[in-house]
């Protein structure tokens, strides 16, 4: 009896398993395909687009890295993203602490002003930002892009941090004040350590989003040696349009760091990326 029931249950799960398998192939298949192409020459690919990479042409990675500007794209992206994330985290955390902790006139107004940044489309900013950066001589500079990234990500940073900071029990702050902590010490020695998980989440989210950012970068940067990675990938594949094998190698170089990080920190990255939507 139980045996029949469990067989029936298994049969009913068959579509479920089939669907899960199919979707896994749809997600993973294209990635494996591009990985195999990255190790094959264009001639091999055109002969058989789906063959196994044998012999594997590992030297293509060295070629792509050294014969193009990939190292400079990587370096530019690293500088821009690290600086922007560090700055936005510090000033965002200070603002979030202030909004969550202190009762003052205008608190709600400031909060509304900052959080309304969450729904601003980049298209509404980009044309004027182009003019403004030209006016102050920061157009086509990494500094200009960093400032723009910080400004456009203050809203989401404050949104994530303020929600978490507000839940820290008030007693802790009362006690700290009684012990004679200054306002800045309270921020640094109470809010920051206790709010560390939320800060970490905000850092992860901003890091992923900015590492992939395209629209602001494509409008605000023009020189090849200033390009960030997304612009660089596009430039590289554009200039290797007929050499698909090399373009695939370039694409894998861009994907690899993300996938490697994801393999080790998958939970952190999933949590960070969905921080604004999961509550």
């Amino acid at each position, binding site marked *: 009896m139980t045996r029949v029931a469990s067989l029936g249950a298994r049969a009913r799960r068959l579509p*479920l*398993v089939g669907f*899960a398998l199919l*979707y*896994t192939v749809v*997600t*993973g*298949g*294209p*990635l494996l*395909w*591009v990985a195999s192409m990255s190790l094959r020459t264009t001639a091999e*690919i055109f002969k058989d*687009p789906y063959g196994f990479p044998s012999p594997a042409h590992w030297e293509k990675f060295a070629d792509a890295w050294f014969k193009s500007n990939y190292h400079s794209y990587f370096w530019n992206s690293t500088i821009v993203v690290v600086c922007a994330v560090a700055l936005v985290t*510090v000033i*965002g955390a*200070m*603002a979030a*602490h*202030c*909004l969550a*902790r202190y009762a*003052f006139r205008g608190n709600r107004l*400031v909060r509304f002003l*900052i959080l309304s940044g969450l*729904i*601003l*489309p980049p*298209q509404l*900013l980009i*044309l*004027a*930002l*182009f*003019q*403004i950066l030209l006016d102050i001589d920061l157009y086509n500079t990494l500094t200009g892009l960093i*400032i723009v990234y910080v*400004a456009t990500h*203050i809203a989401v940073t404050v949104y994530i941090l303020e929600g978490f900071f507000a839940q820290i029990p*008030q007693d802790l702050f009362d006690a700290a*004040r*009684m012990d004679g902590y200054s*306002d800045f010490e309270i*921020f640094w020695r109470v809010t920051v350590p206790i709010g560390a998980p939320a800060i970490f989440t905000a850092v992860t989210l901003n890091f992923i989003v900015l*590492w*992939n950012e*395209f*629209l602001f970068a*494509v409008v605000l940067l023009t020189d090849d040696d200033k390009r960030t990675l*997304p612009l660089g990938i*596009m430039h590289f*594949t554009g200039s290797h349009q007929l050499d*698909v094998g090399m373009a695939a190698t370039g694409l894998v170089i*861009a994907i690899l760091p*993300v*996938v490697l990080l994801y393999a080790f920190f*998958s939970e952190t990255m999933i949590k960070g*990326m969905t921080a604004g*939507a*999961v509550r």
Partner: protein
Amino acid sequence: MKGRDAVPRAIDARRASLGILVAFLAPALVVYAGFTVYPVLRTFYNAFHTITPRSVVEFAGLANFTTLLFADPVFWKAVINTALFTAVATAIDVVGGLLLALCLFARAPLAPLLRVVWFTPVLMSYVVVGILWVWIFDYDWGLANATLRFLGLGAWEQSWLGQPSTALWSVLAAHEWKWLGFNMIVFLAALHALPSEVLGAAELDNCGWFAKLVYVIAPMLKRTIVNLTVLSFIGKMMVFDLIWVMTGGGPLWSTETVSTYVYKRAFEWNTFDLGYPSAIAVLWFVIILAFVALMTRLLRPRDRLEF
């Protein structure tokens, strides 16, 4: 000392002097005001002006808006494309994300691993996803046509991105490939937060899985569904990166969206006028805002479910 009022001001941790407040808020507010608030205001100002090279500004009144609404067929083409893309992509995002989440929630084998694998594309940049999918849609050696040939459906082979009738839907497929995992994770988190007794009770009542989904699970997830619908809607109305990388708006404006058109009018067409594209951006922002207000109003759960 009784109650908050009795606490001396200097010790009350809820209060701070103006100097302290300014010190905490000023860095964020200055950057935000200079590089977010001011650009928005300047865009609104630009929308009513013509801005020629070397920043010669001429007042144009409502001329930009009247041209836009009554004499610009490309703008209307872009509006229709964006509306189609938004409607279909939002629906797939929400329904597909929920189905994937249910699939894992029903304990498909290896569910914890699949959850991580299915989320991978979300972390990639649109540039990478776009280039990958241009190859998938390649007529001669792309995966799409190869799969059709493999299944014996060679007659359905298409030049997916090369013809106006399929280009928009091909970009949409790439978009969903990248983004479905995001909605899946959000739904999965909501599902795990549901009270297990309710689902168990439905099980005992011998409720079929479809009935369970429609009458038990969906109503309890209403808040998540509304949030994700609004979030998806805003994202799709602004879609730019993927279209720019895959088709650049072509062929024959079949994938032109409002965002790509703004970019083209500002930086690609040699019209040298930032006023007109600003007017498009302003109008579109007002429309997005109106729709979001309408949706949150209509879809807000009237009676909150108690559980």
